[in-house]
């Protein structure tokens, strides 16, 4: 009736309802962004604000903080816990938790030391065995969860102790195993950086990929009679990506350069982001985290989704443990203990992945871990004791969770779930 006539004059399929505001201009986009933030859809805003504050404070206290080589070191350190945090994003998406990631990472680094150094296995085989055992641990959690309804909170808390015990048992009385200096794995964890040309090229490719995919989607939408972003907007977006990335790469190249290990971490984030947002699996993960019963009624195999989340989380934790071993060139009793667990979880939450399930992004692991490591690095530069470092990191985690809870409450009252 009314709708029909509107449609005659407005050909776009998704713009026929006059009651809805659409942000078409740049001013409109900014307005929509402000509205979104007001209603509690914060996205990565808290992280960026937090990073700016952290950088300003630490830079004023110690000018070494923003020096290229300190940032390169920071990125090396980010990559190990960051990979673990990526697994946490997965498990938080379905609304569960894994508290044992630290122990799993320590266990896998001990396994690497025992198999590779003590038993003389090829390093590749040792890595594969560690990853497979990590996956098996995740499969065990999901079995306990799916079959017995054991809350993941409890099963992974039990796992935290059990795998720590296994790690200590493997390392035996010596307590630590040194990985050989100069081996490819240790080099990867400590020194290997991208050649300048490669890093510049990768940053440019990222921008080009953003533009090409955006352009192709816009073209398809236009053909189909849906609203589409304009060419200018796409170009602006791609240009912004290229300029920002090239600047970061240029700055890092003033020091040692972009670590390959950080490259691996970013690549994992990109793959995970694609999987979570562009595949049926990712859609199912989000659905299970949002409303398990609705997902089940829609024909999604909910148990298999939980299985995939637990397995991915533990496997990535094991991978993080291997990277940490490479970074430290040793597998020790301390690996994976202390603040590793909480840093991984805190990074995901600080980056904007909700503890309540169904909301999150792979990039939250990347952003969150940079925040956490910046704090750690800044405090180390100030020569503060670890007691203060723990207290400050704890406070940051508490603030992040408060922001998450408040944003969630605001989203609910503004109807944004």
């Amino acid at each position, binding site marked *: 009736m009314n709708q029909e006539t509107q449609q005659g004059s407005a050909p776009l399929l998704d713009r026929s*309802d006059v*009651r*809805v505001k659409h942000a078409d201009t740049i001013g409109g986009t900014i307005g929509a962004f402000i509205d979104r933030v007001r209603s509690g859809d914060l996205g990565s805003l808290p992280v960026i604000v937090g990073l700016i504050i952290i950088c300003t404070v630490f830079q004023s206290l110690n000018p070494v903080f923003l020096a290229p080589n300190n940032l390169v070191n920071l990125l090396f350190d980010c990559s190990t816990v960051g990979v673990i945090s990526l697994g946490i994003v997965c498990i938080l998406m379905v609304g569960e938790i894994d508290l044992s990631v630290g122990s799993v990472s320590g266990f896998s680094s001990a396994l690497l030391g025992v198999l590779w150094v003590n038993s003389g296995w090829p390093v590749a085989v040792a890595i594969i065995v560690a990853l497979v055992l990590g996956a098996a641990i995740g499969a065990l959690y999901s079995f306990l969860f799916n079959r017995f309804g054991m809350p993941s909170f409890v099963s992974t808390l039990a796992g935290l102790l059990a795998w720590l015990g296994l790690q200590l048992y493997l390392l035996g009385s010596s307590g630590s195993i040194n990985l050989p200096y100069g081996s490819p794995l240790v080099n990867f964890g400590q020194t290997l950086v991208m050649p300048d040309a490669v890093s510049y090229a990768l940053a440019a490719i990222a921008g080009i990929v953003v533009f090409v995919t955006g352009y192709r989607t816009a073209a398809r*939408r236009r053909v189909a009679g849906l609203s589409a972003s304009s060419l200018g907007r796409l170009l602006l977006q791609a240009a912004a990506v290229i300029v920002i990335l090239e600047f970061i790469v240029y700055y890092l190249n003033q020091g040692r350069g972009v670590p390959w290990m950080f490259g691996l971490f970013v690549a994992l984030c990109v793959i995970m982001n694609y999987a979570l947002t562009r595949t*049926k699996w990712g859609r199912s993960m989000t659905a299970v985290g949002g*409303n398990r019963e609705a997902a089940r009624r829609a024909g999604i195999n909910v148990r298999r989704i939980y299985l995939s989340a637990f397995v991915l989380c533990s496997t990535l934790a094991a991978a993080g443990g291997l990277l940490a071993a490479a970074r430290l060139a040793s597998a020790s009793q301390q690996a994976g203990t202390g603040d590793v667990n909480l840093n991984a979880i805190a990074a995901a939450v600080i980056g904007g992945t909700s503890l309540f399930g169904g909301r999150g992004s792979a990039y939250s692991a990347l952003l969150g871990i940079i925040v956490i490591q910046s704090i750690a690095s800044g405090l180390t530069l100030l020569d503060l004791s670890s007691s203060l470092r723990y207290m400050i990191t704890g406070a940051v985690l508490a603030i992040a969770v408060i922001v998450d809870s408040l944003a969630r409450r605001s989203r609910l009252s503004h109807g944004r*779930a």
Partner: protein
Amino acid sequence: MPESDRQDSAPGERVLSLRGVSKHFGAVSALTDVDLDVHAGEVVALVGDNGAGKSTLVKVLAGVHQPSSGTITFAGKEVVLADPATALGLGIATVFQDLALCENLDVVANIFLGRELNPPRLDEVSMEIRAWTLLNELSARIPSVREPVASLSGGQRQTVAIARSLLTEPKLILLDEPTAALGVAQTAEVLDLIERVRARDLGVIMISHNMEDVRAVADRIVVLRLGRNNGEFGPDASNQELVAAITGADENSVSRRATRRRSQQAPEARP
């Protein structure tokens, strides 16, 4: 306008026909010899008191329960609804009262949940076009299909749930309490929507407790009482007649008087 629609539409071919369907759960007979016919382009309301067997009947049709005896004929062929997937495959879609949507996903994602196009690389454009087509066919008033469902009203959510069930091109659609927990305007919206589903020549079975809604939209009202057919009424039946049939408080047939005597305590407990 709905009034004129109803008089114009002659019943189409018979979509669904139940004959002598019974369902026992151990010693309890939830359904006894139930007969039910639904034609294309017809809204059949299923009413009855709590425990009358409405939900059991819907579950039998959705393939969740299998009848103990009796036959189900769908689109001219006798069928066995072994599981929900079979029912859906034949063309029987069910819209449950609640728990049907994921609030954190947008409208398109909800409509296609579990049936996404091109799983390894989701075809968002095709899905969005199909979603708009479905919603426009229902003249649905959804402002944007890229907003999370949490931002929609109860009536709009029911619309999304119904659009979702139409995705599989069913011949029969079962609505379980579509207007429960909705406000006045939203209820009217959903009733309009049911009219439009009927206009697409689908058979509709609607369960409701609300006699007003039932009489507003149904072509026939089938009353179940204690698991048995207890009368069939047109949309012009009075409230009193319907309530009498539902509660069994005012019966005149001799054969049913015996039944009433046996279950006298139950109806008298009711005000």
